[in-house]
């Protein structure tokens, strides 16, 4: 099992009337609520936590990209990765990922990741994401072009990393007469690629074909099982043995000394993440064309509840979060691993409005008591695709 410490870098200091007055912490939530001094301290606290994760033995430390939101304070994940690259030595520095569907100039991503690969001495991991719906509003990018932009940007970046000679790139959304990225990446042929999946069969096949890592987003265990099975089937269909380490399960985790303490303290932070951080209308998340008709139908038929409508108990039971004593967290994650067959665990420890002290204590308990017990799991594929 490979362990990744993932950060969202939320801005937790919301006004008291947030629930009544604001439909979301994203897109239109006024920036006046960002307190300059508090926000400044947050960045340093969060980077400290990521650096500490390496010292505790996590294999990777991960950042991501969000725009115009208190849900996550990293409009540029590459800047955060750069800040980590020279302060760490061993852990993979994972950008999960660059929102290449939204990015105006994807060639810039190829350049920045290549630089990061050198700053980190070959430890960088490059995730590619489409960007959340609200970011298509915020950056004025047409969501009906989202998939095409993602696919074209991906193909362009990979070619920019692997071509030996300058080339011309012409696709419907991008035109470059001269592509010739300096520097070359340190890793050959290029850094590992991670792609999040949320049910699209096209994505499963795409990730399997390219040998990329498929990572889940927060969802019910039964749903994640369908996604991972789909990925494994897609891999088998093209004759590739699915490597469990390339199946990454993402989940918020809170560990405290006892179950009682963990739930007493953790409830509020989990509720912040799902009820405030992820408070968003469907118009905001799924702007027109962002979802293909088939994916939209799948979503409606599945009838998944909005995050804000799920109670703490439902979130626990559904495997959206894992909370408890080291023993309980170990046994719950073991259970989830048996069900889902992942070989990589991407944990979110700094959950919502949690304090730095709680975060580091939870990380320490996880690293000293949970990690050793789970380490042997997931090295061989224990779960085969359900037919």
């Amino acid at each position: 099992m490979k362990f990744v410490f993932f950060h969202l870098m939320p801005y937790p200091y919301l006004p008291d009337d947030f629930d009544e007055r604001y439909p979301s912490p994203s897109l239109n939530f006024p920036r006046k609520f960002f307190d300059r001094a508090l926000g400044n301290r947050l960045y340093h606290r969060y980077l400290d936590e990521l650096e500490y994760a390496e010292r505790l033995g996590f294999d990777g430390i991960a950042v991501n990209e969000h725009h115009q939101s208190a849900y996550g304070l990293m409009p540029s994940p590459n800047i955060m990765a750069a800040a980590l690259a020279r302060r760490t030595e061993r852990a993979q520095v994972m950008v999960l990922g660059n929102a290449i569907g939204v990015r105006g100039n994807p060639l810039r991503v190829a350049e920045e990741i290549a630089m990061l690969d050198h700053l980190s001495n070959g430890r960088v991991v490059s995730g590619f994401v489409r960007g959340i719906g609200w970011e298509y509003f915020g950056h004025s990018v047409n969501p009906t072009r989202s998939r095409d932009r993602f696919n074209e940007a991906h193909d362009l970046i990979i070619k920019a990393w692997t071509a030996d000679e300058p080339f011309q790139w012409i696709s419907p959304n991008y035109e470059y007469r001269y592509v010739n990225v300096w520097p070359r990446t340190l890793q050959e042929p290029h850094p590992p690629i991670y792609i999040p999946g949320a049910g699209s069969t096209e994505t499963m096949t795409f990730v399997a074909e390219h040998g990329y890592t498929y990572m889940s987003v927060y969802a019910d265990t039964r749903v994640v099982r369908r996604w991972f099975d789909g990925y494994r089937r897609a891999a088998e269909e093209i004759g590739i043995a699915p490597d469990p380490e390339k199946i990454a399960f993402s989940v918020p985790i809170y560990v405290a000394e006892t179950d009682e303490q963990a739930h007493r303290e953790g409830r509020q932070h989990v509720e912040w993440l799902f009820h405030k951080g992820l408070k968003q209308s469907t118009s905001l998340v799924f702007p027109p064309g962002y979802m293909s008709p088939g994916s939209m139908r799948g979503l409606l038929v599945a009838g998944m509840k909005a995050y804000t409508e799920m109670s703490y108990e439902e979130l626990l039971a559904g495997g959206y979060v894992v909370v408890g004593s080291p023993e309980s967290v170990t046994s719950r994650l073991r259970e989830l691993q048996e069900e889902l067959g992942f070989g990589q665990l991407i944990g979110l420890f700094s959950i919502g409005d949690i304090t730095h002290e709680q975060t580091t204590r939870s990380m320490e308990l996880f690293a000293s008591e949970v990690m050793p017990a789970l380490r042997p799991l997931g090295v061989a594929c224990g779960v085969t695709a359900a037919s």
Partner: protein
Amino acid sequence: MAQVANDVGQATVEYLDFPGGRVQLFRGGAGTPVLFLHAAGGAGEWHEFHELLARRFEVFAPDHPGFGGSDELAEVEGVDDLVYHYLDLIERLGLERPHVVGASFGGWVAAELAVARPDAIGSLVLLGPAGLRLPDHPVTDLFLLTPDQLPGALFADPAKASALFPAEPSIEDVLTAYRDMTAFARFAWNPFLCNPKLERRLHRITAPTLVVCPSGDKIVPVEHGRRYAERIPDAGFALVEKCGHAMYFERPGEFAELITKFLTTGADESGARR
């Protein structure tokens, strides 16, 4: 060709083949041809309003590519493409200088058509037209409205919206609406619901023109219609009171009457015929 009969009247539905798919077209009535271009909403139906127009005209109401019963056409990805699409359609139907009536988004397309080929149309009627960039009079972000906000945003009297917005929409209802909005976003996301160059081109329009706006428009401010009327040579302007942006869905009689009156008095000089 199939007949459709509903509680408001009769029309035929036919399909025209284009590269990449087919387009659905409602046709009803007899007389001088009127090409009606629908708004972001309103595809795929023959409404009481169409029926009222069809008492005096032969009404051609196509669904824009990707809307209603029309396929998405890969070659039609911008409003400039839509202009060529409708010039092709006019030719295919054998219409000679039809009157063109467009509502909201369809009004924008109608204005672009009249700018590109002033000679190709008879009279022009723009209903609550979008298409201009007026930063001081911003258009409401339709893409951000939640389903529960739509009736109040579109209607002066939201009670009249109940037929359009069922309280418990089925999965098919949601998918149909998402498909129409996707088609709309393809043309209107960015620049948002406008062609920044259109205003300076409006002087090219030679068709007799009437602009009709609902007085209570909470989506496209009335100033947009007024600006059209100012920039299009000799254009007329009329307001329909106690009406929201849903326009002919809210007051079909008033809209049909204004249009019919304008087109019948101006028809001779516009020269529309088949």
